[in-house]
C-alpha cells in the first residue's frame, strides 16, 4: 500500500512535469516565439474551436515558411501550444495559467467566446501577459480596466447599428421589430444592442425575450412573435439554435420583411442545414471572404488570405477562421514593431494600434476592443452569401421579404 | 395481572378487505401467547398494526396503559415493542455482533457503540451465536439467522416481543432449541407473542392461545380449551369435518 502511494505520487509528478520539461528548455534559449492557445476542441464549442485552430495553424505555417517573426535583428519561428479545455470555462482558466507558468509562453490567444475570454483574461492580467482575443465582442468582457487584453472584434453594437441603418434606409416600411435572444452572454448582449439600435431609429420593439440554452422547441415563442406582427425579426444565438428557429419560423409561415440571424448564416453549415429557408436571411459579421483589405501583414491582402486558406483547407474561410489568423498577424506585427519579445514593449505597441491587416485596419479602444473597421453586413442570396455593406466590398443588393 | 398491551376493538382495512375486524384482547407481563390461524387470518397484519408498520384503521392500542397509535415504527421499537419477521432481515455486511449491537444502540437507549457491543455480546452468548460474533451476517445459516433476529430483538430490551413464524423452515431439533430459548426469555419477564399457523408448535410453548380467522378473534383461552373448540376446528379443518367431530364427541 505504502509503495502504491509512492508510485502514484512519482508517476503523478512525472506526468505533470514532463510537458514542462520539454517546453521550458526551449524557452530558456528563446529559440522561438511561444504562444499559448487554450481551445474548445471537444464539447459544445468544438466546431468553433476547430475553426479557430485552422486559422492559427495557417498563420503559423506561413510565418515559419517565411523564416519566422523578426525580433530585432534575428528571426524566430513561432510555436503555438494548444490545450483542449473541453468547452468548460474553468478548465480554460486553469490551462491559461498552465500555459503561462508551466509552458512559459510569451503571449496568449484567449479561449473561444466572450464568457471564457472574460474568465481567462483575469489570469493573463495577473501575470501581465499580453493576450489577444480572437472572438470576444461583448463590451462586458473589456469593462474591467485590464491592460493586457486586445480583441479583434468590434463591439456588438458595431453589428447592430449598421444593420439597423440598412433596414431603416432599405426597408422604410419596417416599423415593428421582434427580438429573440439566447440567454447566454454574447447572444443576450447582442440582442440588447439590437433593442437599443432599433429604438434609436424609432422602430418599435414589439417583442423581446430570451430562450434557454439547449432549448429544443421554439414554436410557442414564434407563435407569440407572429401574433405581435413584426416587420423585422432578429434572432441571436448559435448555429444549432438558429437552424432550428429558422425551420420553425417556416413551420408557422412567419415571413417578415427582414429576418436577421446572428450568428450562423455566415457558415455554409447553416445554409446546408436550412436549404431554401436560408435565402434572404441577413446577418452581420466581422469579416467575410469578400473583404478587400490590403495589408502590411504576411498575407498581403484579404483576397490573398482567402486564396491561401482555400489552398490549405479546400474551403472558404469564415470569420472565425480569419480572426484566428488575424490575432496571429496582429501579434507578429506588434512584436516586429516592438523589436523584442518583452511583454511590456509588445503591450505598448499593441495599444498604439494602427495595424493594417487582411482582417481590416486594427486599432484598439482604451478598454482593448477593436474600434477601427466596419464589419460587413451579409445576406444569403440563392444559397450564397452576398455582402450588402460596406459599399467598398458590396456584392449584392438588399432583398426584402422571405421566400 | 396488569396488562402490558391492550387492544380495544382494533380494525384494519385494506381497501374493501377487512384484514382485522374489531380485535380486543390484552396481554399480561411475562405471558407467552400463541396467535394462530390459517394463512390470511390476519396474524401478520396484527403484528404490523401493533408495530405501526400499517397503522390501525380504528380502535385503540394501549402499551403500559398509554395509547400508542400514531407513533412511528421507530418510536414503537424504542418504547419496548420488538418483533421478528417471517423473512429474516439482517444487515448483511455488518458483523453478527454489530447487527445485535444496532438493536441495543437504537432501541435500548444504550449511548455508546462500545456499550452496545458489550450488551450485544451477552445476547449472543444467550442465543448461542457467540461463536460467529465476528462473521458477516450474510454468511450465516438460516437457523443462525433466525437466532440473530431473536438476538437483535432481545438486544432492544423489549417488554413485548412478537415472534412471527420463528420456526418456519427449521427442523424438529432446531424448533425445540428455539422453544427452549423462548421459554427462557419469557422467564425473564418479557411478554411473548408467538405467531404461528402450526397449532402443535404453540401448544406446548404457550400458556394461552388466541385464534384468528378472517380477521376476527374466534377463540382465546388455554391450549386445552382451544383444541376442543368447534369454531377453531371448523376454521382449520372445514365445516364437514367439524360436524363429524361434534358427532363423535356427542356419542362418546
Amino acid at each position: 500500500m505504502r509503495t502504491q502511494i509512492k508510485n502514484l505520487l512519482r508517476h503523478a509528478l512525472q506526468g505533470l512535469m514532463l510537458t514542462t520539461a520539454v517546453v521550458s528548455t526551449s524557452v530558456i534559449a528563446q529559440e522561438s516565439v511561444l504562444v499559448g492557445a487554450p481551445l474548445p476542441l471537444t464539447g459544445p464549442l468544438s466546431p468553433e474551436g476547430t475553426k479557430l485552430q485552422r486559422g492559427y495553424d495557417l498563420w503559423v505555417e506561413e510565418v515559419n515558411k517565411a523564416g519566422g517573426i523578426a525580433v530585432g535583428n534575428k528571426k524566430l519561428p513561432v510555436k503555438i501550444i494548444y490545450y483542449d479545455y473541453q468547452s468548460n470555462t474553468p478548465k480554460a482558466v486553469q490551462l491559461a495559467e498552465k500555459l503561462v507558468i508551466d509552458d512559459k509562453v510569451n503571449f496568449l490567444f484567449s479561449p473561444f467566446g466572450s464568457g471564457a475570454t472574460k474568465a481567462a483574461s483575469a489570469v493573463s492580467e495577473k501575470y501581465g501577459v499580453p493576450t489577444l482575443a480572437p472572438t470576444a465582442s461583448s463590451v462586458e468582457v473589456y469593462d474591467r480596466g485590464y491592460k493586457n487584453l486586445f480583441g479583434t472584434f468590434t463591439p456588438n453594437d458595431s453589428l447592430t447599428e449598421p444593420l439597423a441603418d440598412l433596414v431603416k434606409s432599405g426597408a422604410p416600411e419596417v416599423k415593428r421589430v421582434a427580438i429573440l435572444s439566447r440567454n447566454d452572454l454574447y447572444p443576450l448582449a447582442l440582442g440588447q444592442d439590437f433593442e437599443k439600435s432599433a429604438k434609436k431609429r424609432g422602430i418599435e420593439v414589439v417583442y423581446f425575450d430570451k430562450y434557454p440554452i439547449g432549448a429544443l422547441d421554439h414554436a410557442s415563442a414564434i407563435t407569440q412573435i407572429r401574433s405581435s406582427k413584426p416587420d423585422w425579426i432578429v434572432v441571436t444565438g448559435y448555429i444549432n439554435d438558429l437552424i432550428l428557429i429558422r425551420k420553425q419560423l417556416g413551420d408557422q409561415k412567419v415571413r417578415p420583411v427582414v429576418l436577421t440571424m446572428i450568428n450562423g448564416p455566415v457558415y455554409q453549415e447553416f445554409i446546408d442545414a436550412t436549404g431554401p429557408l436560408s435565402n434572404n436571411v441577413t446577418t452581420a459579421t466581422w469579416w467575410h471572404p469578400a473583404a478587400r483589405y490590403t495589408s502590411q501583414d504576411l498575407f498581403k491582402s484579404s483576397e490573398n488570405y482567402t486564396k491561401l486558406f482555400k489552398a490549405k483547407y479546400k474551403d472558404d474561410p469564415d470569420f472565425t477562421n480569419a480572426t484566428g489568423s488575424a490575432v496571429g498577424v496582429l501579434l507578429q506585427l506588434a512584436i516586429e514593431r516592438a523589436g523584442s519579445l518583452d511583454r511590456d514593449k509588445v503591450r505598448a505597441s499593441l495599444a498604439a494600434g494602427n495595424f493594417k491587416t487582411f482582417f481590416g485596419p486594427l486599432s484598439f479602444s482604451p478598454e482593448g476592443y477593436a474600434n477601427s473597421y466596419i464589419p460587413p453586413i451579409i445576406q444569403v442570396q440563392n444559397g450564397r452569401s452576398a455582402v450588402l455593406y460596406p459599399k467598398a466590398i458590396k456584392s449584392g443588393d438588399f432583398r426584402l421579404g422571405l421566400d | 395481572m396488569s396488562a402490558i398491551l391492550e387492544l380495544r376493538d382494533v380494525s384494519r382495512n385494506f381497501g374493501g378487505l377487512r384484514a382485522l375486524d374489531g380485535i380486543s384482547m390484552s396481554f399480561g407481563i411475562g405471558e407467552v401467547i400463541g396467535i394462530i390461524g390459517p394463512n390470511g387470518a390476519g396474524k401478520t397484519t396484527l403484528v404490523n398494526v401493533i408495530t405501526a408498520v400499517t397503522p390501525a384503521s380504528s380502535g385503540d392500542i394501549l402499551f403500559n396503559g398509554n395509547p400508542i397509535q400514531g407513533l412511528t415504527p421507530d418510536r414503537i421499537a424504542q418504547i419496548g415493542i420488538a418483533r421478528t419477521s417471517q423473512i429474516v432481515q439482517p444487515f448483511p455486511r455488518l458483523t453478527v455482533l454489530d447487527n445485535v449491537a444496532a438493536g441495543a444502540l437504537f432501541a435500548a437507549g444504550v449511548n455508546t457503540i462500545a456499550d452496545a457491543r458489550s450488551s450485544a455480546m451477552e445476547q449472543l452468548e444467550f442465543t448461542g451465536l457467540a461463536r460467529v460474533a465476528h462473521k458477516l451476517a450474510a454468511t450465516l445459516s438460516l437457523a443462525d439467522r433466525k437466532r440473530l433476529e431473536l438476538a437483535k430483538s432481545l438486544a432492544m430490551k423489549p417488554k413485548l416481543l412478537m415472534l412471527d413464524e420463528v420456526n418456519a423452515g427449521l427442523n424438529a431439533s432446531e424448533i425445540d432449541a428455539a422453544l427452549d430459548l423462548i421459554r427462557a426469555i419469557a422467564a425473564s419477564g418479557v411478554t411473548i407473542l408467538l405467531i404461528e399457523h402450526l397449532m402443535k408448535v404453540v401448544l406446548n410453548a404457550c400458556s394461552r392461545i388466541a385464534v384468528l380467522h378472517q380477521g376476527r378473534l374466534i377463540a382465546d383461552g388455554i391450549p386445552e380449551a382451544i383444541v376442543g373448540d368447534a369454531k377453531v376446528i371448523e376454521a382449520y379443518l372445514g365445516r364437514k369435518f367439524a360436524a363429524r367431530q361434534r358427532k363423535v364427541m356427542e356419542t362418546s
Partner: protein
Amino acid sequence: MLSLQILINGILLGGLYSCIAVGFSLVWGVLNIINILHGSMIVLGAYAAFFAYSQLGIHPFAFIPIAGLSLFILGYGLQAKIINRVMGAPVLITLTLTFGLNLILDNMMMVAFKADYRKIILDPPLGLLELGSLLIPIDRLYAMVLALGLVGCLYAILRATQIGRAIVAVRMDRDAAALMGVKVKQIYAVTFATGAFMAGAAGCLMSVIFPISPLTSNAFLGKAFVVCVLGGLGSMPGVILGGILLGLLESFGTLWLGPDFSTTIAFVVLLTLLMFRPTGLLGKRGFE
C-alpha cells in the same frame, strides 16, 4: 386564437417528446435501468438516416426499419455482453455503467461525425397543414403518428406474442417469471434491444426536425427523463400522456412566463409530482 395555436404547438411537441421517450420508458420499466445511452442512440439513428438520405437518397421514413434494426442489434449486444453483468445491482451501479457507456458512444460519434450540425432537408418538404389560421407542421404530425404507432406496436407485441408476454411477466415479477421458465437474461436483452430499436426509429424522424449532432443527445435524454416520470414508468399510455403534458407545459409556460422559464416549470411540476405521486400519472407501483 393565439392560445389555440399554442395548444396545438404543445400537443405536437408532446408527440415529439413521446416519440423520444417511448423506448426509454420500456427499458426503465422492464429492466429497471435508466438507460443514459438512449439520447445518443437517437442521435445515432438520426445520423444513419442522414447519410442514407444524402448518400443513397433513401427517404428517412423508409429508413426507419433499417435504422431501428441496426440499433436493435447494437442494443442486444450491449445488454447481453455488458449491462447484464450488473442487472439487479443498486441503482448507482447500473446508472453509472450506462453513463460510462454513453460517454464512450458519444465520443465515438464525435470522432466519426464531428460536432457540426446537420439536418435532412426533404425535397419536396413535408409542408404544412392549414386549418384557417391554425398551422400544423406535417413533420411533427408524423412524429405524433410514429409515437402512437410505436406505442401501439409495442402494446400489441407485449400482449399478443410469446416474447411479449414473457417481457410483461418479467416486468411484473422477475423471479416468478424465472420459475415459469422464462429466460430472464434473454428477455432483458431483447427488451433493451427493443428500446434501442425505438430510439433508432425516433432518430430517423429527428433528423428531419432537429439539427443533429452528438451534442444534442443530452437534450433528448433529458426530455425522455421528464416524460417518463410525468407519465409513469413502464406505462406505455403514460409515455403519450407524459409527452403531451410536457409539451403543453412548455408551450403555455412560454406564453405565460416567457421562453426562458418554459423548461423551469416543467421541472417544477416534475419535482412536485415526484413528491406526491412518485410513480407518475399512469405509473404502476413497485418500480423503485
